């Protein structure tokens, strides 16, 4: 029974071949399929069931191929469901944005004069200043990635366009926010400057 397997037994069965592997995959399939259905059903208008059926084989393969990344502090089936949820959401995010070219999300920087240190910024100026800093205080790659994310493009899709992975992209964006933090602090820009008056 699937529920009777320990984490070590799951790992051993998935690392084997023959009947033990087949039995483990048979036990795992309905668990992953349920996770895919639960993830897709509220997010897809039509065809959630067929998409779940399409993805379950990929999910099984990913779980088997990445089993060595399982840390062992959670139940193996929880980890496997996490892999399935990630697969399903990545697929939805990719489909939603696949036809949007990245360069349509990147704006030209506005020409903004530097305000004096004690000069209060009007909202429109503050908006322009922040846009200006996104374009000039960051590297081109940081700026492109950040603008795509601000437009709503998911990290996984931005990462795919920039030929990197989500983890490296998060680091890139984190470094960008640290640069912006310094730039905002130097100019005294706060979120309140961007509230409509």
């Amino acid at each position, binding site marked *: 029974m699937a529920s009777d397997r320990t984490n070590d037994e799951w790992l051993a069965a998935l690392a084997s071949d023959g009947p033990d592997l087949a039995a483990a995959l048979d036990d795992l399939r309905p668990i992953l399929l349920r996770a895919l259905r*639960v993830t897709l059903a509220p997010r897809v208008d039509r065809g959630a069931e067929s998409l779940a059926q399409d993805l379950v084989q990929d999910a099984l393969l990913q779980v088997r191929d990445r089993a060595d990344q399982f840390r062992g502090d959670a139940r193996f089936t929880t980890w496997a469901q*996490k892999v399935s*949820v990630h697969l399903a959401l990545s697929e939805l995010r990719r489909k939603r944005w696949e036809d949007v070219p990245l360069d349509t999300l990147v*704006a030209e920087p506005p020409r903004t004069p530097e305000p004096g240190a004690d000069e209060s910024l009007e909202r429109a100026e503050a908006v322009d200043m922040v846009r200006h800093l996104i374009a000039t205080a960051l590297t081109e790659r940081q700026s492109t990635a950040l603008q795509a994310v601000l437009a709503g493009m998911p990290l996984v899709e931005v990462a795919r366009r920039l030929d990197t992975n989500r983890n490296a992209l998060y680091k890139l964006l984190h470094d960008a926010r640290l640069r912006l933090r310094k730039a905002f602090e130097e100019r005294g820009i706060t979120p309140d400057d961007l509230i409509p008056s």
Partner: protein
Amino acid sequence: MPPPPDALRALVAKSLATEPDEMSCGECDALVDRFAEMTLEGLDATAARPLVEEHLTACPECREEFEALMDALRAAERDGMPWWKRWWAGRQR
């Protein structure tokens, strides 16, 4: 397409709150399965793993994945219940 003012405002707030040693998506992902289990078990996952909670607050995509995982685990829990408990759990939602 320039970023909308609301997104810029959120960016300013998030940038000013950015610390050098934040958890990455990958680091969060490695811990979030146990974090989800602890949450379902009624344990104080946030106290045990505050950086995970911090990352889930800052990263909408990791938050969505965490919530979907929670939904999947709850569904698994319901499937493992006797029929009358499933019926009762359904009435409580």
